């Protein structure tokens, strides 16, 4: 799973969000390292909806513009959990080895 996808699913794991909300949340989660743009975000939404990992939740009209909210599906939550677990195992292995050679592992 690519980093933007992981971060989008992570943002939606907190609850339904609209497009701009996801962009700001991803920026916050990644501590400013990842700033999604509209093209990347909606291409990802298109794919994730097709794969059944997210779905539309509701729509609002704000200042005359449509604001559509997206939420994580059951499959999306399972996929995110599996990916988080995989990353946790890898991080744990990396930390253990770094600790063994004494060049890190304070974390």
């Amino acid at each position, binding site marked *: 799973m690519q980093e933007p996808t992981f971060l989008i699913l992570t943002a939606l794991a907190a609850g339904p969000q609209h497009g701009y909300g996801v962009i700001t949340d991803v920026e916050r989660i990644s501590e400013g390292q990842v700033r999604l*743009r*509209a*093209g*990347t975000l*909606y*291409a990802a939404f*298109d*794919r994730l909806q097709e794969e059944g990992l997210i779905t539309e939740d509701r729509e609002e009209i*704000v200042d005359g513009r*449509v604001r559509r909210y997206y939420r994580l599906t059951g499959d999306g939550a399972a996929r995110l959990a599996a990916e988080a677990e995989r990353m946790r195992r890898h991080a744990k292995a990396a930390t253990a080895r770094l600790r063994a050679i004494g060049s890190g592992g304070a974390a």
Partner: protein
Amino acid sequence: MSPLESRYRRLLACYPRDHRARHEAEMMGVLQAGARPGQTRPDLADVADLLRGAALVHARRAFGPVSAGAWRDGPAVAVALWPFLMLVSEVATVSLRAAESLRHGAAFLEQPSSIRFLTEPALVAALPALAVLFGRRWIAVLAVVAFALRQAGHPGPELNLDLLFLPNHGPLLVAEVMALVIAFMPVAYRAVGLIPRGAFLLWGPLALVGLIAGKAVVRARWVDAIADHVITSWKPVPWLIVVALAAGYACRSTVGRRAALLLFLPAAALGDLGDLPSVPTSTALAQLGCAVLAFAAAAALTRRRSGQRRAPAT
């Protein structure tokens, strides 16, 4: 509409129509929310990101799981159409032969052997098309027998290995054999059902007219092939235009787009293209331009019509 918004809209026009209908207003909101006060032009990074996003969405529509059905049906439709194209090609040739014979009087109509000589190729070509149309293998078997008998009765240049490499013999024989093979394929029978009957009624006669118009230039001796070589070099154009119009028309559906992509070159090759290397580059480009224009006109017309049909529903 602000200059920034109109520029964003031009970029969003690169996305597929259904994606725009669903997300354009939403994306516009996101883009404007992220814009700086007083900004009139999109950032280069936004432009690149929107174009990349559009390419990704298009690619997913064209090659992703959602297009699996179209990739299955498109080639099947292209395959199913081949025996019909061979039939049209034979009927065009037979029509011209009949016209040539009629120029010397109608006496030949009283001789059964002449009638047989004229009609036999079209009848042999009709059998694979009928086998596909009705999904009957016994018609396909009959087609093979008729083809074998015809080849045995006319052991002419087709059986000469040297001539198999000439454009008017070898490829034509391969094309006929392909039509016979397709006649046995259940997938062709299933695919032919995807083509609207109205399309057959429209494009069948048009294809015939296009082929006859091209072949007649030389075969009916309207022009001296050597003295009027400029006119002769334009003989494939009527057929190329019909094929390009049909491809543009087919592009209104995802299945049609794939079928047109696969079938365009083999179909164009049926048009008595002649000795292409001897055609001047400028003429070849002008001919290609005619085909491109016909394709674009048909695609634009069918796109507008389908847009008009959709409009009342939305």
